[in-house]
Each structure stands twice: as C-alpha cells, then as structure tokens.
C-alpha cells in the first residue's frame, strides 16, 4: 500500500527534477567547501546562503501550489505558517545562546532581560531541545491551519472570501507578534543566533549543511505532493477545484479533503520557515506581512500553477530576479514584479512550465507530421500528452492522447 503510494510519485518528469536537485544538493556545497577561493567554480559563501534561502522559498511555493493549483484554495496567508515555523526554530536557536548573550543570562533571552522579565514564559519551555522545536515547527502551523480550516471549510467559505480571511489571519498575527508582551521579541524578533545542534551557525560547513537540508526537505515534500496529486485523492482535489458541488453530490465530503491538504500545506510552509531562519539569521514580525503571502502566489503563477515543478521554478527565478534587480535597479523592482504578474496573467496563464510543455508538444507534433510527409507509415496522431500537463493524470492514460489544455481554471 505504502510502496504503491510512493511509486506513484515517480515518472520521467519527477526523475528529471530529482536529478537536478541531487546535482544541486551535492555540487553547491562541494564547490563551496572543496574548491579553493580562486577557482572559477568556487561558490562563494554568500551564494550558498542565498541559494539555500531560495530553496526554502521554493518549498513555500510548493505548499501554496498544492492548495491553490490542485484544490483551488487561493491562500493569501501562507507566509503566516512560514513565519510560525520560523519562530519555532528561532526560539530553539535563542535558547541555544545561553550565557553568550549580551546580558549573559543562562535561561532568559536578551530581550526578556531587557524587558525586566523575571522568568521564562511557559510557552518557551521545551524549546531548548531540538526535537521539541522540530515538532513545534510542524504542530504550530498545522494546528492553526486545522482550526482555521475547520471553521472556514465547514462554513463553506470559498473563493475571494477565503482569500481575504487568510490575509486577515496573517495581518492579525503580524500585529500580535509586534507586541512586546507576546514574548517573541516584539519588533526586533529573534536574532543573534550562535549555534544549531552544537554547530557554529556562521561556519561554512554549517551553512553548507543547512543548504543541503533545505534541498532534501524540498525533494521530500515534492515527492509527497506528487504522490498525493497523482493518487485518487489528487483527482478528487482537482474535482473540487473544478466543480465543488458536483463533488459533494457524488458523496465526497469536500471540507475533509480541503482540510487535509490545507493542514499538510501549512506544515510544509512551517518546515520552509524553520530552514529559512538559521540561514538568514533573524526572524521578525515582518515575515507576517500580507505582501509576502501575495508574493508567493506570484511565484507560483509565474512558474505555472498546478504543476509542482512550476512552483519551485517560479520561486527560484523570481527571487533570483529580485536579488539582481534590488541590487542593480532598486527603484524598479516593485514595478517589475507587478508588471511580471500582469504579463503572466494575461499572456502565460499556465506559467513558464505551461509554455514550455506547449512548445514541446507543438514541436513533437511538427516532427511527427514531417515524418509522415516524408513517407513514414505512421499517421500523425493527435497531440501527444505534453510532459508538463497536470500531474493528476492517471498512469493508465499517460501514454494516450491528451490535449495540452488541461489547465487549471482560475479561482473565482
């Protein structure tokens, strides 16, 4: 049962993605650690951290794609789950500082000493242990998403209304975390980390390790998402996206399905946040900003929603562009981002992956026609299934004739 579940995740496209990811996970740290600084192939330290950050963004985008691309839930609040995972990891890192803080208190983080707090608040207990923090990285976003989803999906809040309350959720958390009495460092957040699992957080090897961990987390979550979207459950999700009431009248409890992917997606976002924080060295309430969540949606749209690979690609490309733009033409970046979203929505409804697969299909079609003209006996078939058409196609039909226009419908 389990093996068939995982086996379902694999095919040529997943294989290509895994091969690229394996190369990245091995080569980037190796080129950073093993090659001398003068070498052409040496990857500088800052680049390792930067790319590690991209990988955590890619994981966040993957989480959004699972709920938006496949189930039609347009979340404009996923950065909240990302930030909560980040805070859970940040609390662990704060507790690791110990007496090395500015005030040298063995238990209390610096900001609590500064605020004259006498003792550690109860919700900081246990965060000195990594396993506990790791559990919280999953549980805190997961439980919040479950409770939020329980009420939202049971009351059949859908479409724009749901998007708006997810924005409200992340905004409420932003305001709450800004307050000093919340006990999460207020405006400044958590920073000045020293080490993680006993390793110096500034060391090159630790950074390379964090990079590899981000890559592995991305690969693992990708495989889980893919196994899900290619299962019968994945087909039900697409059914919900396309015709929710029809799905209900077939006897499926739509709210249970939505709750399942929503919670899972929030947990993935939490993992992304937890890997993000040690690499950038800080977590503050700014991560809850509503604009952040919207940006994630843009990444997914640019890459191609409902494709999984597209979400990863979109996140990396847009963030690479952001890094370049904000350095070279800082004033233009926001215009460029806005413009990009408009262009993608108008001209590339299926994103980059959609365009590439369409082009590939057209090319193959042309070649088949040419072969036919040249005298081959095989008549030109219909458009072969594009390599990047949505992954919800059952293996049984994958060799058959599927037009490439199986695109996700826009959420209301």
């Amino acid at each position, binding site marked *: *049962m*389990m093996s*068939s*579940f995982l086996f379902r995740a694999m095919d040529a496209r997943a294989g290509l993605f895994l091969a690229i990811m394996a190369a990245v996970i091995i080569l980037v740290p190796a080129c950073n650690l093993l090659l001398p600084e003068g070498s052409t192939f040496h990857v500088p330290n800052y680049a390792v951290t930067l790319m590690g950050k991209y990988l955590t963004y890619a994981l966040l985008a993957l989480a959004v794609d699972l709920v938006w691309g496949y189930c039609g839930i347009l979340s404009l609040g996923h950065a909240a789950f990302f930030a909560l995972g980040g805070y859970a990891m940040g609390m662990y890192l704060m507790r690791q500082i110990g007496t090395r803080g500015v005030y040298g208190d063995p238990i209390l983080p610096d900001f609590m000493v500064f605020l004259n707090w006498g003792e550690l608040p109860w919700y900081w207990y246990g965060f000195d242990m990594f396993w506990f923090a790791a559990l919280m990285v999953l549980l805190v976003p997961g439980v919040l998403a479950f409770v939020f989803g329980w009420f939202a999906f049971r009351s059949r809040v859908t479409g724009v209304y749901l998007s708006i309350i997810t924005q409200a959720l992340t905004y409420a958390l932003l305001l709450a975390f800004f307050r000093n009495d919340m006990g999460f460092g207020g405006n400044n957040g958590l920073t000045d980390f020293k080490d993680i699992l006993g390793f110096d957080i500034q060391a090159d090897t630790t950074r390379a390790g964090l990079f590899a961990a981000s890559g592995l987390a991305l690969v693992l979550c990708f495989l889980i998402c893919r196994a*899900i979207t290619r*299962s*019968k*459950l994945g*087909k*039900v999700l*697409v*059914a919900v996206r*396309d*015709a929710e*009431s*029809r*799905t*209900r*009248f*077939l*006897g*499926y*409890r*739509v709210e*249970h*399905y939505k709750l*399942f992917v929503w919670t899972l997606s929030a947990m993935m976002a939490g993992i992304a946040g937890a890997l993000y924080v040690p690499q950038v060295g800080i977590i503050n309430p700014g991560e809850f900003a509503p604009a952040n969540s919207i940006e994630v949606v843009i990444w997914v749209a640019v890459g191609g929603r409902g494709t999984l690979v597209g979400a990863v690609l979109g996140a990396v490309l847009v963030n690479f562009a952001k890094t370049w733009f904000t350095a070279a033409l800082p004033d233009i970046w926001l215009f460029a981002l806005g413009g990009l979203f408009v262009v993608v929505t108008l001209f590339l409804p299926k994103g980059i992956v959609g365009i590439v697969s369409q082009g590939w299909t057209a090319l193959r079609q042309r070649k088949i026609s040419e072969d036919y003209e040249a005298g081959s006996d095989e008549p030109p078939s219909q458009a072969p299934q594009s390599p990047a058409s*949505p992954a*919800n*196609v*059952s293996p*049984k*039909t994958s060799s*058959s*004739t*599927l*037009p490439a*226009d*199986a*695109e*996700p*419908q826009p959420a209301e």
Partner: protein
Amino acid sequence: MARSSSLLYLDGVSVSFDGFKALNELSLTIAPGEMRAIIGPNGAGKTTMMDVITGKTRPDSGEVFFNGTVDLTGEDEASIAELGIGRKFQKPTVFESHTVWDNLELALKAPRGPFATLFHVISGAEKKQVDHLLDLIRLGSKRNELAANLSHGQKQWLEIGMLLAQDPKLLLVDEPAAGMTDAETAETAELLKDIANDHSVVVVEHDMVFVRSLGVKVTVLHEGSVLAEGSLDHVSANERVVEVYLGR
C-alpha cells in the same frame, strides 16, 4: 401510499426564499422501482424540490423520508449521496480537466474518505465496471478524452454515467434532454428507460415529446405544489393544467 412502503416520501414540504414560496405544502411519493416524470412551468419549484431531496436546501416545514425511515432533512449532500440518491444537474456538470475515465472512476461506489482515496489502487472489478458504464453511455471511444472536449449531449450522458457509477437507489435527473438534438433526445429516452429497469428514477423535463416517449406517470407542479398526477394523457386533459401550463 404509506410512508413505510415508499422509496421517497415528501409530505407538506414548504420552502420560501425572501417571502417567495418556492414550495408550498408539496406532497409527493415515489414507490420503489418507479419512474416518474415531473413537469411544470418555470418557477413551479422543480429544481427546489431536487435541492430539498439532496440536502442542498433545508425545508422550512414538512417531512422528507427516504426508504420509509431515513429523515433526509437532517442530512447533508455527501451523506444523502452515500444513502443512494444520485443527482444530475440541469446544466451538465462534469469534471472538465479530468478524462472521461477519471470522471467515472471518481463516481464509482467506493469509500469516500480522504485517507481511503489517498491509498486507493484501482481494482480489476472497478475497471470492468467503468468499461461497462462507458459502453452504456456510448462513450467508449472517448475514454481518454478530457471531459471539457465533449459535446453538450455527451456531457449529459457522462453525467448520467457518473450517476449510475454511484449505484444509487434513486436517480434525480434534471432536464436530461436540454440542448440535445432530436436524435440525441430519443437516445437519451432509451437510456433512461434502460436505467429504470433496475433503478427508481425521477425525471424533471420541459420537453413534452420526451416525456411522452418515456411513457410513465406524470406529476404536474405549479407554484410549489402538485396540480395533477397521472398518465400524460390524463393530466393533459385536466383543465387547470391546460390553463397554467399547456395552454400557454
């Protein structure tokens, strides 16, 4: 007919929307194995009646019982579907970005929970059943086609096929012949008659030729309640029916 021997039993059902009485003390009984056609002018409450039976709309008052014992007013859409009531919408509603095959596979009677579907592997028996349904709805050659690429009539059939895949005791079919060519309409009538051999069917339809070709008992709705009941010839002879509906 007594409630206990009926398949579907509606008694004194009223629904109002903002003061407008969509259903007004509607009483209707369907016997097991029966096929019934429901006609009536626009706004007579045909679709609202379907909504009440399938759990989409809760009645303000009245009783709705399935199988003589199950109170449908306390159930939601998913559990009513599980009880064995399938519904076809007025506008054909299929999963457009799924293939014809997948549409039927999703409709097949099977555990409906998320974890059951997550680990589901399609069995040989299920494949056979889908193949059988594909033949029945005459879409065998389109099995790998996306549902979005089907013609209007084919979508109607696919939806009927999905209904059958659920293996319901009662099928509610809302305007199956709408937008069909004459030939398709005739074929649809044949298909429904086939289905009625081993299912109970309620058909809502405007098309009199179609209703006549079904040759079953007809219920005429008007302003949310039953105006007349009987064979088509019998209700056509009723003056009130002629006045509100046929005479227009």
